[in-house]
């Protein structure tokens, strides 16, 4: 018998520190598989966020740098400009990229930096205890919106990929989810494309992945997937939101 599924070379052997059923782990695996398949493990530098993925630098087999909260794309910009032959990507939570890091998230795309961003949207500040984030869904109960997010008071959630897609420097923007095996495989295709865009130097690429946070949502890992489908997927525009002609030709 042959092994047909197992740990990709793009990950180290270290067990993830994430909570049981947290889909950060699935997104890590997809990135690890893509690094292996594109044969870029030795050429890649990742930038880790602040958030539950703050220690992700130990989980990937490529080089990694940790950034201050929300600053991953600024750090990645510097690395890519100094070392243009390297593949540089950021891995960021929704709070990191769409709250404290919003300015960078917009301007990195406006400048068309030739980097790749993986955004993991679990609709809360996971690491700090599940507070409301700019990505929290209307009505969603969090530790700081105990009666549910009141959009009349605090505004509707930010659909960051949709916003970034309006900027000329962003050449590939995709919004995926890891709720089913089919969508997980689709998310992997999008992540792979986002790295290929950078290999070809075409411009900025962003892949958002709707993800779960069983601990702070207060649901079982299996129920979280259903919650994501019923509550997040109707609110966020899904699919490959933007692809330039050059990207389509990849």
């Amino acid at each position: 018998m042959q092994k047909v599924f197992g740990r990709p070379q793009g990950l180290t052997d270290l067990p993830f520190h994430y909570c049981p059923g947290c889909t950060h782990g699935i997104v890590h695996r997809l990135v690890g598989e893509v690094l292996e398949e594109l044969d870029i493990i030795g050429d890649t530098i990742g930038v880790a966020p602040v958030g539950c993925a703050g220690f992700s630098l130990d989980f990937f087999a490529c080089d990694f740098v940790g950034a201050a909260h929300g600053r991953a794309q600024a750090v990645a910009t510097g690395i890519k400009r100094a070392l243009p032959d390297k593949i540089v990507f950021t891995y960021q939570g929704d709070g990191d990229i769409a709250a404290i890091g919003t300015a960078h998230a917009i301007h990195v795309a406006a400048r068309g930096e030739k980097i790749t961003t993986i955004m993991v949207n679990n609709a809360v500040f996971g690491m700090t205890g599940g507070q409301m984030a700019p990505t929290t869904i209307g009505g969603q109960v969090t530790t700081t919106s105990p009666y549910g997010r009141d959009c009349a008071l605090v505004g509707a959630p930010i659909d960051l990929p949709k916003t970034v897609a309006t900027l000329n420097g962003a050449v590939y923007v995709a919004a995926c989810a890891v709720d089913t095996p089919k969508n997980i495989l689709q998310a992997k295709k999008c992540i792979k494309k986002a790295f290929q865009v950078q290999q070809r130097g075409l411009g900025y690429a962003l892949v958002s992945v709707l993800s779960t946070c069983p601990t702070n949502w207060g649901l079982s890992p299996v129920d979280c997937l259903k919650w994501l489908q019923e509550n997040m997927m109707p609110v966020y525009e899904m699919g490959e939101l933007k692809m330039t002609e050059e990207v389509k030709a990849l």
Partner: protein
Amino acid sequence: MAKVVVLGEYCKSCGLCVAACPRKVLAIGDKANSKGYYVAVPADPDKCIGCGLCGTVCPDLALEIYK
């Protein structure tokens, strides 16, 4: 012939593989790993068709599939 292998020390007992398996091969077992998680087990191993769905949904790389 197909086989699923659970790497017990990686498993966190989340149950996602149990829900995803179309052949009901996997179950949460009654033995805990060193962290105290009750590890998933192939309760009905002969039914495995090696489809890979369990591995695809496992967030902790606790599953290997052989064919």
